[in-house]
């Protein structure tokens, strides 16, 4: 779950990380009012995706009239598929230097990594690739968090590559200690897998200010942060309910399904387990078919979930056949079979259904399917060939 910039900044502000003054505007009038209050501001499109600056989603304005005009323009935009629902109107900063401070999950180390660089801004990834020594990293103890001396070591390592900051490094290191500790505590509190300040602005008068913010919350931990999910949903869905996501994926999310749409494909795909479904897609492609989607019913799905999944897939009229690939482990074949038969009968499915079923309770599952006139296979590659035969190849 990726928060919007203004939501991330609201979190920063709550825990005491300085952010520029700003107002959220959902209408041009609100943007004009913000400019009236704050003076010169940047009008920034609020979309959960990068590259909005290049796309024209940011404008700096001097007057309320300009603010109104630019807000009209930006609020009408759609950036990489996301309609702009709101703009963040923010005062500018006198920036002396741009740093980078971020926290992200490091799978290999099984810890959060705290990353600091004196080379902040847009090119941080390039810096990381070409001058890795300019990126200082720390993997704090998961229980203690970053200790002051660890942050100082990180700071002196990062600042060693910024001659302009040599004089100020002691003061900066001292200021970075509470900032990094606070950011880390925030990441842990919110179950963030990414929590980033870039640029972290060193202002002309020596303050450290979060000029931009990214916060992504672990989806497995959303249940611990219902307020964030609610807030984000309000912001992403306008009055028209458009979220900027693929409409099929938005619908699937509403139905609680793990679904990825592959527009233009003709074969609907259902399986139990992400690896199996990914492999199902690969198999279809290998024999010349075009999958329409990825749908993982997960482990232990019941008949109802199978029914819902089939109904979901068939909302895309491009789907001309469905491949259901089940290797039961925690999932039980009989449950799946019941769901398939129910769905076919209740939804009046007429496109071909090819079922591959093996694993837990497969005997009972295959009996249920056979009695309903659906002949299941046991080999996935064979079943893939069969569905492609029935639907026709790519194109």
């Amino acid at each position, binding site marked *: 779950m990726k928060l919007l910039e203004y939501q991330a900044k609201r979190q920063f502000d709550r825990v005491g990380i300085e952010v520029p003054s700003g107002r959220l505007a959902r209408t041009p009038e609100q943007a004009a009012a913000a400019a009236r209050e704050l003076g010169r501001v940047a009008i920034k499109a609020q979309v959960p995706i990068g590259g909005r600056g290049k796309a024209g989603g940011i404008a700096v304005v001097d007057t309320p009239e300009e603010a109104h005009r630019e807000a009209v323009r930006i609020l009408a935009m759609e950036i990489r598929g996301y309609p702009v629902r709101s703009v963040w109107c923010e005062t500018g900063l006198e920036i002396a230097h741009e740093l980078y401070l971020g926290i992200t*999950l490091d*799978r*290999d180390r*099984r*810890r*959060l990594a705290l990353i600091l660089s004196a080379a902040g801004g847009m090119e941080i990834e390039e810096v990381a690739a070409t001058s890795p020594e300019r990126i200082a990293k720390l993997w704090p*103890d*998961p*229980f203690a968090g970053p200790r002051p001396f660890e942050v100082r070591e990180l700071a002196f390592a990062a600042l060693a590559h910024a001659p302009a900051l040599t004089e100020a490094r002691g003061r900066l290191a001292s200021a970075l200690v509470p900032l990094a500790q606070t950011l880390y505590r925030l990441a*842990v509190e919110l*179950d963030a*897998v990414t929590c980033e300040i870039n640029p972290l602005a060193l202002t002309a008068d020596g303050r450290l200010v979060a000029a931009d913010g990214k916060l992504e919350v*672990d*989806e*497995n*931990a959303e*249940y*611990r942060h219902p307020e964030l999910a609610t807030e984000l949903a309000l912001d992403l869905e306008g009055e028209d309910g458009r979220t900027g996501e693929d409409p099929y994926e938005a619908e699937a999310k509403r139905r609680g399904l*793990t679904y*990825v749409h*592959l527009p233009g494909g003709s074969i609907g795909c259902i*399986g*139990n*387990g*992400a*690896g*199996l*479904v*990914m*492999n199902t*897609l*690969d*198999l279809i*492609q*290998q024999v010349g078919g075009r*999958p329409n989607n*990825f749908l*993982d019913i*997960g*482990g*232990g799905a019941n008949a109802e979930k199978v029914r819902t999944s089939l109904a979901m897939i068939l909302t895309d009229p491009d789907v001309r056949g469905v491949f259901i690939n089940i*290797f*039961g*482990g*925690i999932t039980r074949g009989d449950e799946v079979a019941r769901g398939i038969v129910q769905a076919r009968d209740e939804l009046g499915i007429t496109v071909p259904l090819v079922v591959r079923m*093996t*694993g*837990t309770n*497969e005997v009972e599952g295959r009996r249920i399917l056979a009695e309903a006139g659906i002949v299941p296979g046991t080999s*996935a*590659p064979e079943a893939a060939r069969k569905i492609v035969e029935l639907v026709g190849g790519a194109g």
Partner: protein
Amino acid sequence: MAILIDVSTRVLVQGITGREGGFHTQQMQAYGTQVVAGVVPGRGGGETLGVPIFDTVAEAVARTGADTAFTIVPPAFAADAVMEAAAAGLPLGICVTEGIPVLDMVRATAFIAGTPMRLIGPNCPGVMTPGQAKIGFIPNHVGRPGRVGVVARSGTLTYEVIQGLSESGYGETTAVGIGGDPVLGSTFVDILPLFADDPATEAVVLVGEIGGSDEERAAEWIRSSGFDRPVIAFISGRTAPPGKRMGHAGAIISGSTGSAQGKIDALTAAGAAVADTIEEVVRLVGERLAP
């Protein structure tokens, strides 16, 4: 021979009275796995499926000599259950729970690093040593005692590979589903050395997928350790669109290390045979096993 579990393994089930816990305990019992204890706080002194229940893992271990924890509790409680099993001194834990918050696992893996426990999972299908024992979800009928070690991230592809190897007559020494989460108790590089120490394992099938760098690190280990048995690898998710989340939290393409091609290249360079399909996996295994 086998790795991790065998006929002598004594299993303790955390969550034995849950719907899934009960079902899979029965499946394990049917397979011949020795399930010696269940742990359900507040229900100690009771019994289910012929298995005594205890309030705490420590008590269950003291009273039954359990040596392996099978953790099948809801995600909000799973990391704590794993830590309890580790604190009780169990050398092996297998956690199948899906959906555990990743920072819970960051803390749990840090905790168990200071204990004797080796953790498999979470979000994994478990472990099977055909003919001896299985712990987890791997369907009872797919395995067959044999010559090939299996280590896989995806649960269902683990089943596919086991079935393929069994039907072709090669069979498995032990099959290990390590799980698909971003933070895992054991990754390929933790399991491969166990196969290296098992003389009965004549070849290893490694089933990876997009995301993370576990496959690249496995390739590096194969190369640097001088692992002397054939490795046949399979990487799923090759047609996955970049940046799309594919259900497994870990299966997100991130940088060059996460891509399917990067993994295939790394494994090939390390001398592994990389197959395009499960059928090809089985064929390549057959070509490489001594007749």
